[in-house]
């Protein structure tokens, strides 16, 4: 049938950059970022024309002066990014990272304030309990999905609201945790704060190290283990995974619980952080708002193509432009400009990948058509056949 040599020669010729999966996802991420920034610039132009250029400059370069903060703020969204990206690999859309994040934060706070334990391990236990909180909030949509076939998107959203109301109520009702005069939580005792990295004037702490490590571990799990193999197989084709005897339901629940655990850790890393002013720590204000970290996580995951290492970099990037975004208030804008940019980035990453593959398809087909006339007549037959097979798959 096919002439093997011919095929190989052809493959070599087509081995252009668009063939490389890593490159194409990087290119589409760049494209999405570009569109996002352009849109942000247009918005700034509309809002206040004379300051737009200065504002843009802050967004792009502002983060440089505050790298410590960039890393601090990258920590939680790196974790929520992993929470979303990990579930994506399984074909699940974990839009509930916000609720899981909030739950994790609450669990961490609770342990940090209420439990008595040796100083040296208090912060570690607080972090871990944050993970448990998040896992719990990921577990429930997982169970609903696995056993009752309820779409995880809607469940997760409902649990974002439930988690938010619940946590705000519990915090407000707790005198140790909540300080009604400031309408925020109290400062955490020192021993339940995550050790700072000692860079003065910033909040950066050990959390970012943990987060990056977790990213790397996930990468190994996804690439090298049977669990990763099953997870990805299920994400690509759940029918085939079922046929191969993989335990789809268990894996769905496990994936959602692990993803929730990541988001919960994000909440813990965010709230257990020491703040720049010595002795104080980060605080939380219960005002019935859904945490934005979860949604930022979606952007992070998409920009990083759900690849754990990609997510590490995209989290730092998002955090970086967010820091820059806060500086735009110096020229009359508001930090929300970055949320606008992020939303646009997500919008374009949803189809940037497709644009990209479309682009590479066109390039490839152009090459291939030219060559077709030279290669064996067998070639069209095999490929046409696979198209016919697609028809069958449809029905």
């Amino acid at each position: 049938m096919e002439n093997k040599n011919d095929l190989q020669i052809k493959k070599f010729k087509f081995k252009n950059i668009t063939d490389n999966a890593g490159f194409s996802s990087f290119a589409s991420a760049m494209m999405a970022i570009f569109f996002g920034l352009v849109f942000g610039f247009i918005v700034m132009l509309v809002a206040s024309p004379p300051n737009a250029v200065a504002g843009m400059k802050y967004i792009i370069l502002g983060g440089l002066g505050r790298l410590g903060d960039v890393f601090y703020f990258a920590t939680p969204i790196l974790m929520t990014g992993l929470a979303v990206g990990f579930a994506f690999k399984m074909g699940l859309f974990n839009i509930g990272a916000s609720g899981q994040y909030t739950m994790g934060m609450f669990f961490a706070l609770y342990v940090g304030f209420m439990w008595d334990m040796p100083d040296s391990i208090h912060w570690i236990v607080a972090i871990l309990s944050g993970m448990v909180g998040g896992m719990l909030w990921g577990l429930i949509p997982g169970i609903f999905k696995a056993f009752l076939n309820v779409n995880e998107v809607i469940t997760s959203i409902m649990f974002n609201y439930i988690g938010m109301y619940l946590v705000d109520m519990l915090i407000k009702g707790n005198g140790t945790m909540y300080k009604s005069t400031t309408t925020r939580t109290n400062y955490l005792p020192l021993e339940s704060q995550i050790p700072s990295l000692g860079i003065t004037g910033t909040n950066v702490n050990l959390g970012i190290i943990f987060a990056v490590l977790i990213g790397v571990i996930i990468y190994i799990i996804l690439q090298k283990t049977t669990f990763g193999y099953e997870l990805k197989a299920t994400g690509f084709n759940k029918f085939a995974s079922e046929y191969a005897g993989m335990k789809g339901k268990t894996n769905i629940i496990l994936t959602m619980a692990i993803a929730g655990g990541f988001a919960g850790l994000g909440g813990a890393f965010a709230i257990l952080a020491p703040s720049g002013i010595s002795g104080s720590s980060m605080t939380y204000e219960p005002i019935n708002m859904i945490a934005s970290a979860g949604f930022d996580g979606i952007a992070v995951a998409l920009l990083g193509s759900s690849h754990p290492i990609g997510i590490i970099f995209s989290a730092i990037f998002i955090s970086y432009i967010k820091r820059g975004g806060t500086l735009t208030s110096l020229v009359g804008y508001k930090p929300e400009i970055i949320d606008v940019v992020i939303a646009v980035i997500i919008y374009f990453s949803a189809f940037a990948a497709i644009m990209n593959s479309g682009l590479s398809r066109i390039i490839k087909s152009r090459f291939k058509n030219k060559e077709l006339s030279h290669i064996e007549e067998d070639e069209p037959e095999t490929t046409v056949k696979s198209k016919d097979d697609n028809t069958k798959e449809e029905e």
Partner: protein
Amino acid sequence: MDTIYYLFQNMLPVAISLLLVALGGMFSEIGGIINIALEGIMLFGAFIAALFVYSVQGTDMSPQTILLLGMVVAAISGLIYSLLLSFAAVTMKADQVITGTSLNMLIPAAILLFAKMFFGSDGITTNVNFYIREVHILGKIPVIGKLFFQNTYLTVMIGLVFLVIAVIIFYRTKFGLRLRACGEHPHAADSVGINVHKMRYAGASISGILAGIGGFFYSVGITDGNVNGHTGVAGFGFLALAVMIFGQWKPMRIFFGALFFAFLRTLAYSVSLIPFLSNLGIDQTYYKMLPYFATMIVLAFTSKKSRAPKAEGIPYDKSQR
């Protein structure tokens, strides 16, 4: 008895808002597009309409005229915003859920940005009173008058009219038949010469119109004219999706679903007025969580056998036949 009237009168504006948005979701999905952006479209429609109301308030235009014009403004803005979804979902064949999520995120951020810059607040508050104490004559009808024509808004009447129109379009028109074919079996529709892309744009656009109006009605009937980027529409867009699933993508069933959810929500916010419930001493937050819990329970019971349009969420690609 008065409590029941009170609950019912308060429930209707909530139900109508949910109903319109859920019907919007339905039109989008029976055409094949999952519209998770309802929340964002609602907020966009509400905000633009609020801007309009803000700009005309204080003139001698009558409140009900403003309401009708505001509705048109909201419809148009919803339509325009939904085009972003249609473009991504139909033309670019993008992932519909992710696109919808981004559209949901964009609007609150944009509102906060602009409102903070130009109004110095989180949003915009209008102060036109759309409330109708009693409709002439109709309000005097025993029971029914009290239920439907007292302490109400024009939105309720309009919403019910929309429901009737939706039922007719769904079952009785050529358009409805074709739209449903596109969500169920787009290749079949294509093979008889129906332009699937156009129909899907149409379905999503109707959902944009209805969600825009629903958002405006939400701000009129529920938040007293305040539209802000923080609370937005409090997950109503998502609740509407749940109502739609509960209603199995059928207009009348969606109506009953909307009534059910609206009842729960009204109950949650009226606890202090109902002696029996307020005596229980349960934190009001639990009641606020009630609609979301109810959604979960309802979905748990309906999802196993629910029958979504077969081709929803799948971009239509001619060559992939």
